């Protein structure tokens, strides 16, 4: 065993940074130390709803300006909190260092760009509802007004990309929420680093004082019942991993609502033109490689399985392998700052790939730290399809898509389709089957602008608000 790097991960609670490290968490080649969550527990609950009044005195302009200012300060070259978060992520994250560097240096501030935030608020909520009462004439002629208020919300966030921490802090500010963020083991630091940055430049700002970030081990029964209770929060936003969702689901009851961003999988549907041995094959291969490979397949938007239609294609087996070879080649040509070989494959996947190569079925091209394409020998996914990671995809030849669509459930998030005409043909059926996002193949991992779109079939920003009704004669002023 070589040297062990140690990282101090602070807790940030309502504008105060706690850095008395007392608890040690060990990983392979690193450890991180945190304060004791039980000690800060008493500071987490808001004294009363009235304590959120300060947030509601801010205008949306103030909020967006604040976030824009925050976004500019997140570059790890200049911000020691963020540098620390980046360095720890190199150990905890599955993303290669080079890709992490791109995200921390170039991407995180995107989540705070004023024009994007303003657009998201306007399109997903309606800015007017956040800024004051909006007159709505009731169907029976009653005079009613609606306003979106902030909620006390616990966020159990995912750590597969640092963007999750950024988007959580932005969403909380935009909806004037009071956030308690539980960070995950694969990214214990980024949310705390962003919150600490807020403390550095505006310690008393209401947006700073309504964010708390801490790490504890998910499922800890000495902590979670006290945070996830109606006395402390109105809502829980739980990301990812089925254990995380189940843990959070435990606490749902009168007074606590769950916004579940469930674990999702994504697939691709590719028409028979991709087997033409010419331009169709080249284009489809590049597009599929982008969806599989960008951000190293760490997001749920990236496909693990791609179905390719062999309808009317002679010698389909050979052609599917040719496509697989092209996809593998294209994976290797993705820009290294967005996609790179990993140091080590997950053990279970590595073993399955090794076994597949021995058996010769399924057929594998690559299948190592550079990525790979696993071609099914029949029209079924391989048994380890769900384990595909680090730029590996299961290419499944299929005679028709009907059966594939039948198998789609609400666990399927993004479906990348090629060519475009096929997307237009299939999008309605895919949506009815349960899929939540249909995109042209190659667009699945597009990180730009997703903030303004619904996620997993949910309008998260809207759900994060409490929607309050005022009935009766309007205020003449």
């Amino acid at each position: 065993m070589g040297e062990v790097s140690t990282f101090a991960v602070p807790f940030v609670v309502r504008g105060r940074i706690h850095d008395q490290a007392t608890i040690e968490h060990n990983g392979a080649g690193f450890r991180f130390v945190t304060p004791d969550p039980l000690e800060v527990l008493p500071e987490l609950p808001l004294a009363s709803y009235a304590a959120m009044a300060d947030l509601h005195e801010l205008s949306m302009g103030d909020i967006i300006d604040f976030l824009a200012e925050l976004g500019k300060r997140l570059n790890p070259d200049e911000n020691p909190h963020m540098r620390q978060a980046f360095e720890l992520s190199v150990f905890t994250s599955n993303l290669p260092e080079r890709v992490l560097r791109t995200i921390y240096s170039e991407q995180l501030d995107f989540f705070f760009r004023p024009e994007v935030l303003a657009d998201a608020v306007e399109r997903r909520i309606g800015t007017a509802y956040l800024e004051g009462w909006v007159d709505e004439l009731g169907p029976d002629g009653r005079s009613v007004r609606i306003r979106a208020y902030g909620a006390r919300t616990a966020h159990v966030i995912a750590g597969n990309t640092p963007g999750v921490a950024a988007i959580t802090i932005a969403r909380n500010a935009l909806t004037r929420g009071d956030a308690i963020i539980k960070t995950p083991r694969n990214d214990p630091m980024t949310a705390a680093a962003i919150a600490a940055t807020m403390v550095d430049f505006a310690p008393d700002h209401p947006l700073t004082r309504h964010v708390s970030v801490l790490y504890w081990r998910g499922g800890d029964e000495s902590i979670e019942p006290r945070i996830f209770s109606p006395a402390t929060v109105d809502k829980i936003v739980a990301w990812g991993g089925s254990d995380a969702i189940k843990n959070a689901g435990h606490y749902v009851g009168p007074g606590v609502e769950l916004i579940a961003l469930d674990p999702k999988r994504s697939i691709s549907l590719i028409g028979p033109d991709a087997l033409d041995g010419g331009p169709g094959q080249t284009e489809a291969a590049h597009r599929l490689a982008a969806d599989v490979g960008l951000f190293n397949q760490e997001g749920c938007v990236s496909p693990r399985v791609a179905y390719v239609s062999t309808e009317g294609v002679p010698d389909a087996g050979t052609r599917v392998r040719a496509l697989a070879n092209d996809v593998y080649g294209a994976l290797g040509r993705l820009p290294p700052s967005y996609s790179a070989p990993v140091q080590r494959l997950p053990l279970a996947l590595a073993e399955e790939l090794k076994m597949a190569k021995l058996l010769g079925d399924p057929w594998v091209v690559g299948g190592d730290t550079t990525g790979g394409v696993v071609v099914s020998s029949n029209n079924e996914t391989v048994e380890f399809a769900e384990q595909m990671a680090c730029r590996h995809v299961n290419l499944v030849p299929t005679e028709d898509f009907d059966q594939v669509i039948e198998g789609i459930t609400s666990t399927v998030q993004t479906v990348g389709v090629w060519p475009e005409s096929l997307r237009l043909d299939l999008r309605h059926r895919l949506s009815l089957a349960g899929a939540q996002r249909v995109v042209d193949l190659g667009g699945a991992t597009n990180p730009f602008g997703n903030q303004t779109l619904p996620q997993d079939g949910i309008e998260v920003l809207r759900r994060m608000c409490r929607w309050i009704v005022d009935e009766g004669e309007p205020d003449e002023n």
Partner: protein
Amino acid sequence: MNEPAERGDEGSPVPPTGDKRDDAGLLGDDPRRLFPSAAEMFAVPYGEVADLQLETIRRRFETLAPKVTMLGRLAGQAGIDQIKTLEDGAALLYPSAVYKSYKLSWLEGGDFTSLTEWMGQFTTYDLSGVKAARADSLDEWFSELEEASPLRVCHSSATSGKLSFVPRSEVEWRRRAATIPFADEAAGIEDGPRRVSYQGRPIISPFYRSGHSAFLMSLDWNIRVHGDVSAVETLYPGHLSSDLLVLAARLKNSIGHDELPRDPAQFSLSPALIDRWAELRELVSRPTEDRLADFVEAVSQRFAGKAVWVIGPWPTLVDAAGMADHAGLSSCFRGDSIIHTGGGAKGRELSDDGYAQVTRWLGVGEIRDSYGMSELMGANATCSAGKYHLNAWTVPYLFDEDGTLLERRGTQKGRFGAVDLMASSYWGGYMSTDAVTMTWEGHCSCGRNGPFMEHSIERVPDIADDKVSCAATPGLHDDLVKVLAQWGK
């Protein structure tokens, strides 16, 4: 079982000839003849053992590579056409998933022909005469295999829902059974019996009498080689159906706890399955208290005061000892009785309370577990210093997390793999999923020569712990109703 019990290789041992080629043959084919006792096996300087291992592995590889399709492929991919050093063997370990690399859909769809073809790639035996198409169930498939070949396949315990099938044959089972006494014999400077024989000992096992699980196959061959069939008591007298075992495992997964409803009426099952519902319930949970209490009382009376051989999974032994305690039964057997246990104790210490209860019931001073796995033959003893010592026919390798072979130096922690030189009808190279700490140089205080392992053994970490991702990971849980609907037909 209709066959009479057979004696082990207890005849007068032929001492090692000193001729490396002869001794290498014995190391693989009959280690008990090469080393008449554990004391003698562990007295040999390890350098000499390693020389013998190299000669044996070289010969095994030469013989098997042309005949065992999968070994040929493995060697081809590793670029090895002959073994020159022991390190070459490290490149010739099957991945840990090797024996469950068949398609689950074959089992579910009853395609035993494909399963047989798959199995055929692992063994020297020609399986073309196996009438797999006649089989409708796993149990029937085993019968067909056994009718047409010397294969006596054993399988893993089904906890993951997919069984591993190890292509062992009669010759290896006999060989394996013959080496079991090594684990019970004192060696080095230890006190205790230097030669152990199981002859004349009644055998007590609180599970089924036979079946194809690795545990039951081992029990059965131990009885055949060492025992007296008329002096065997098992909790259930019959054969454990592997099909039922798989169903039980999947039900356990689907219900998330271990209690099946008493009345199966709600599931519209086949009459055959309804008939076996009670058995299934016991498999899913544990033996009923009444049954276990009766068993404990019966064996304690029948073999009272005798030197017995108890072979059982640890959790069941603990349950049985609880019953004995309740019935006021203690020190039921002679103090030199032999206890073989495992499964449940692996990776953690035998729990204190249970340990005290079991030793009190049986009347023995000490129970030591051993280290082993279905894929590699032999029980590797725990010594008086609490270390595991590997038998000479097991060629050990340790790998770091990148799969790089670690040097045989000092004390190293790594992933354990080995070549089992007793395997002669299949290739014995296997990469385990155990992370062990091995001391290659230095002497164990028990006085045995050779490398030894710390007692605590972990699974190779794939730490998913509290790592949260928005991407779905493989689901483990079956749906109860779906499972039963599939089997109810």
